[in-house]
C-alpha cells in the first residue's frame, strides 16, 4: 500500500460525506441556539431570558460566556461564517468528484446486456407466456410505450431484447441543485462585501445626498433624494394601517429626474440603490404647515396653508381663523370627552378659533378622519394634513449580488423539480423461445421509487396475459 500524499488527503477530507453530515448537524444545532438567544440586541434582554432559564445566580456569568464566544451575534461571527465556507467547499469538492460519473450516465445511452446482468438487477421478474416470441415482443413493446417508455429492439441469435429508459436528464437535477447553492453563496458574498445596508430618515420637504449605516457612518450618494410627502392611511373606522406611502423625488444636480410613490412591498430602485419604506415618525417643527380645505356656500373649495397660531381670513367673509391647538391622535371616550391616544398621526385634529374683528365668537375641533366634525357655523373645513411634521424611514440597500441570489433560487427550483419529478428508470426485457412458449425476463432499475417501478413492470407483464386471453377467446 502506498501512503497518500497530503493534497490527496485534504481532498478526501473535503470530499467526504461524513464531513457533510457533521457540518450539517453543527449548523443546525448552532442555528437553534441562535433562535433562542436573541441576536444583536442589548445585553439586558438576553440576561432576562437567561435568568428565566437558569436563575439569577448564573445568568450574568452565562451571558458573559455567550457574549465572549459571540453566540449573541453569531450569524456574523467568524466561526459561523467559516462553517458556511466549509459547507460550500465540501459541496464543491463533492460535486467535482461526482461530475465524471454523472456525465457518463447522462451521455451514455442504455445498451443491451447479458442475462446474468439482468438477473442481478434490483428488480427482476420472469415468467413464461403461451405465445410466440414475435407476438410477445409486440405486446410488451406496446405496453412499454403506453407507460411512457420508448423501447428499442435488439435481435440476438437466440433471443430478442427490448431496452428502454426514461427521465435520464433527471440525473442532472441533483447537480443543478448543488451548483445553485454555490451560486447562492457567491451572491451572498458579493452582497456582503460590495454592498451596504443603511437607512435614511427624511422629514417631509427635506432632501439628502447621503445615507447612514447602522454604526452611524455616512455613505454618499451621487444623487439627491427628497421626500415630498408621507402619509399613513387607515382602514375605515379602525386604527389598522392600510398603507404607508412616501412620495419621493430623485434629483440630479438640482434637477428633478424621477418621482415615485413608494410603499411597503413597492420599493424604488435607482442606480443600483433600492429604497424601502420601513418606518416613520412624527416630529413637528414651527415651520410645519397646516393644510385646510375650506368650502363656503358657493361650493368652491379653497386650499389654505397656515402656521400654528397664525390667523387667516375665511374666504368670502369677514371672519378670521386661528389654529390654537393640535393633537396627533384625537379620540373620543364614552362620555364624549376628547383625549389624545397616540404619539403618531393616527387621527390628527386641530382646534380652530373663529374671530370677528378681535372678538372670539366660536371654537371647534376638526378631526381629520371624522367628516361630521368638519361642519362649522361658517364653512365646511376639512383638515387635510400637517405637512412637514412627519418623516419617512427608508431602508437603503445596495446589493450587487442579489441577481445571483435570484439566479440561484431559479436554478435550485429547476434542479429540485428535475431530480424529484423526473426519475431515471431503465428497463431491459429479454424474450426467447422455450419449447413452443416464450420466456420473458424483465430487469429494471431506477435511482428511486423501486417499489412503484416494480409494480409498473408487473402491470406491463400482466398486459401480455390479458391480450393472450383475448386472442384465445376470439
Amino acid at each position: 500500500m502506498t501512503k497518500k500524499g497530503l493534497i490527496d488527503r485534504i481532498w478526501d477530507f473535503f470530499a467526504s460525506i461524513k464531513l457533510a453530515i457533521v457540518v450539517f448537524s453543527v449548523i443546525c444545532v448552532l442555528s437553534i441556539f441562535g433562535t433562542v438567544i436573541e441576536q444583536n440586541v442589548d445585553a439586558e434582554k438576553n440576561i432576562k431570558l437567561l435568568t428565566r432559564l437558569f436563575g439569577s445566580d448564573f445568568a450574568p456569568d452565562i451571558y458573559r460566556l455567550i457574549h465572549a464566544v459571540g453566540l449573541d451575534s453569531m450569524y456574523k461571527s467568524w466561526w459561523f461564517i467559516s462553517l458556511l465556507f466549509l459547507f460550500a467547499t465540501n459541496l464543491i469538492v463533492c460535486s467535482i468528484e461526482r461530475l465524471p460519473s454523472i456525465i457518463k450516465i447522462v451521455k451514455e445511452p442504455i445498451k443491451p446486456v447479458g442475462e446474468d446482468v439482468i438477473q442481478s438487477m434490483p428488480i427482476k421478474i420472469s415468467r413464461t407466456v403461451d405465445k410466440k416470441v414475435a407476438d410477445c415482443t409486440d405486446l410488451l413493446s406496446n405496453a412499454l410505450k403506453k407507460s411512457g417508455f420508448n423501447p428499442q429492439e435488439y435481435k440476438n441469435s437466440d433471443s430478442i431484447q427490448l431496452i428502454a429508459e426514461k427521465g435520464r436528464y433527471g440525473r442532472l437535477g441533483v447537480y443543478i441543485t448543488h451548483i445553485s447553492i454555490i451560486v447562492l453563496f457567491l451572491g451572498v458574498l458579493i452582497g456582503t462585501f460590495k454592498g451596504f445596508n443603511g437607512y435614511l430618515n427624511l422629514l417631509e420637504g427635506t432632501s439628502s445626498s447621503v445615507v447612514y449605516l447602522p454604526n452611524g457612518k455616512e455613505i454618499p450618494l451621487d444623487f439627491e433624494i427628497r421626500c415630498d410627502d408621507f402619509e399613513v392611511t387607515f382602514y375605515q373606522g379602525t386604527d389598522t394601517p392600510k398603507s404607508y406611502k412616501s412620495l419621493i423625488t430623485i434629483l440630479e444636480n438640482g434637477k428633478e429626474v424621477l418621482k415615485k410613490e413608494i410603499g411597503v412591498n413597492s420599493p424604488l430602485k435607482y442606480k443600483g440603490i433600492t429604497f424601502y419604506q420601513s418606518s416613520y415618525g412624527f416630529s413637528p417643527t414651527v415651520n410645519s404647515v397646516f393644510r385646510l380645505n375650506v368650502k363656503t356656500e358657493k361650493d368652491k373649495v379653497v386650499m389654505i396653508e397656515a402656521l400654528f397660531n397664525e390667523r387667516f381670513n375665511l374666504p368670502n367673509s369677514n371672519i378670521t381663523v386661528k389654529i390654537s391647538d393640535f393633537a396627533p391622535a384625537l379620540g373620543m371616550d364614552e362620555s364624549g370627552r376628547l383625549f389624545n391616544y397616540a404619539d403618531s398621526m393616527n387621527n390628527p385634529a386641530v382646534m380652530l378659533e373663529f374671530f370677528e374683528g378681535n372678538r372670539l365668537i366660536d371654537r371647534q375641533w376638526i378631526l381629520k378622519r371624522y367628516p361630521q366634525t368638519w361642519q362649522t357655523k361658517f364653512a365646511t373645513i376639512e383638515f387635510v394634513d400637517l405637512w412637514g411634521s412627519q418623516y419617512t424611514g427608508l431602508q437603503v440597500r445596495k446589493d450587487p449580488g442579489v441577481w445571483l441570489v435570484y439566479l440561484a433560487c431559479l436554478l435550485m427550483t429547476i434542479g429540485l423539480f428535475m431530480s424529484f419529478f423526473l426519475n431515471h428508470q431503465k428497463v431491459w426485457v429479454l424474450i426467447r423461445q422455450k419449447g413452443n412458449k416464450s420466456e420473458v425476463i424483465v430487469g429494471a432499475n431506477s435511482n428511486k421509487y423501486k417499489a412503484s417501478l416494480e409494480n409498473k413492470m408487473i402491470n406491463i407483464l400482466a398486459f401480455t396475459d390479458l391480450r393472450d386471453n383475448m386472442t384465445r377467446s376470439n
Partner: protein
Amino acid sequence: MDNSTLFGIASIMYILAMVLYITHFVFKKNAIGWIATLFTVIGFVAHTISFFVRWYEFSQIEGLGIIRAVPLTNLYESIVFFVWCLILGYLIIEFRFKNKSLGAFVTPIAGMALAFIDISGMSKEIHPLVPALQSNWLLAHVTMSFIAYAAFAISFATALMYLSSVSDSKRSKSYFIWTTVLGIFLVVIIAMGLDFVLFKVAGMSHKVFLKSYLFKASFRNDSFSIVLISSIIAVVLMALVWRYGIELKKIIEAFNITPDTLDELTYKSIAVGFPVFTLGGLIFGAVWADQAWGRYWSWDPKETWSLITWFIYAFYLHARLLRGWRGVKTALIALLGFVSTIFTYLGVNLLLSGLHSYGSM
C-alpha cells in the same frame, strides 16, 4: 349565505361523520359507512364554498383585490384551511383504497381542530391586511408552505405506521419509539385542551393565552401537586398507549400495506414536500422579504427554523441516497423532520419572537 354559516354547516357534518365513522369502524355496517362518507362530502362542499365566499368578502374590503385577499392570514383561517386539506386528503385516500377505517382516525383530528377554534374563542372576523401582508407573494408563499406541511404530515404518519408495522414485539426498539411518539402527541393535545377549557373562559386574547397559559393547567401549574399529578397521568397515558399499541398495529395491518411500501410512501411524500417547501416556503418567503423589507434573509427565528427543517429533510434524502439508509433509521429522521415542521409553524410564534409577528409594519 355568509362564510361562517356555511362553515358551521360543514363543522356539524364533520362531527356527525366522525360519530358515524367510529360506529362503522366498530360495527362494520356498510350502510353507516356510506352515510358517513355522504356527510363528509356534503361538509366538504360547504366548507369549500365557505372558503371562497370568505375569500370574496375579504377582497371587497376597500379594494384589496382578489389575489391579495386569500383568507390565510391568521390562526383561525389557517386552521380552517388545515381541516380542509385534511378532509380532501382523506377523501382521496378513501376513494383510492376503498377503505373507511382511516375515517375513524382522521375525522376526530378535524373535530378536535374545530373544537380548538370554538373553545379558544379565537377571532373569526375578517381582519384587514396590514401593509406588509399586502403582497402577491403571500398567496404563493402561504399556500405552498401549507401543501408542503401536509406532505410532511403524511410522511410523519407513514413513518409512524412503518415503525409500527416492523415492530413484531413489544420489546423491539421501533415499537417503543412509535408508541412513545404517539403517546407524547396525545399528552400534548390533552394538556392543551385542558388549558383551553380552564383559561379561555377568562376571555383573554388568544395571543396572550398561547404565550403565557400554554400548559398552565397541567405541567406549568403554580401548584406543585398539580404538576406532579399531571406528570403521573402523562406517564400513565403513555404506558397505556404502549400497552395497547398492539391493537392499533392490527388496525394498520388491516390496510394490507407492506412495510416497504410505507417506507417508499414516506420517501415519496418527502420527495414531493421538499421541492415545494424549498420553492414556496424558503424561496418565495425570501423574495417577499426582499420586496417588503429589502432583505432576502435576516436570520429571524421563523426563517431559521424553516432552514433547520429544510436541513433535516435534506439530511434524510442524502442518508437514503448516499448511505443507503432504509427503514427504522430514515423513519426516525422523518419523525424528527415533522417535529421541526410543527415547531416552525406553531412553536416559533408561540415561544420565540420575530419579524413574523408582524409587529410594526
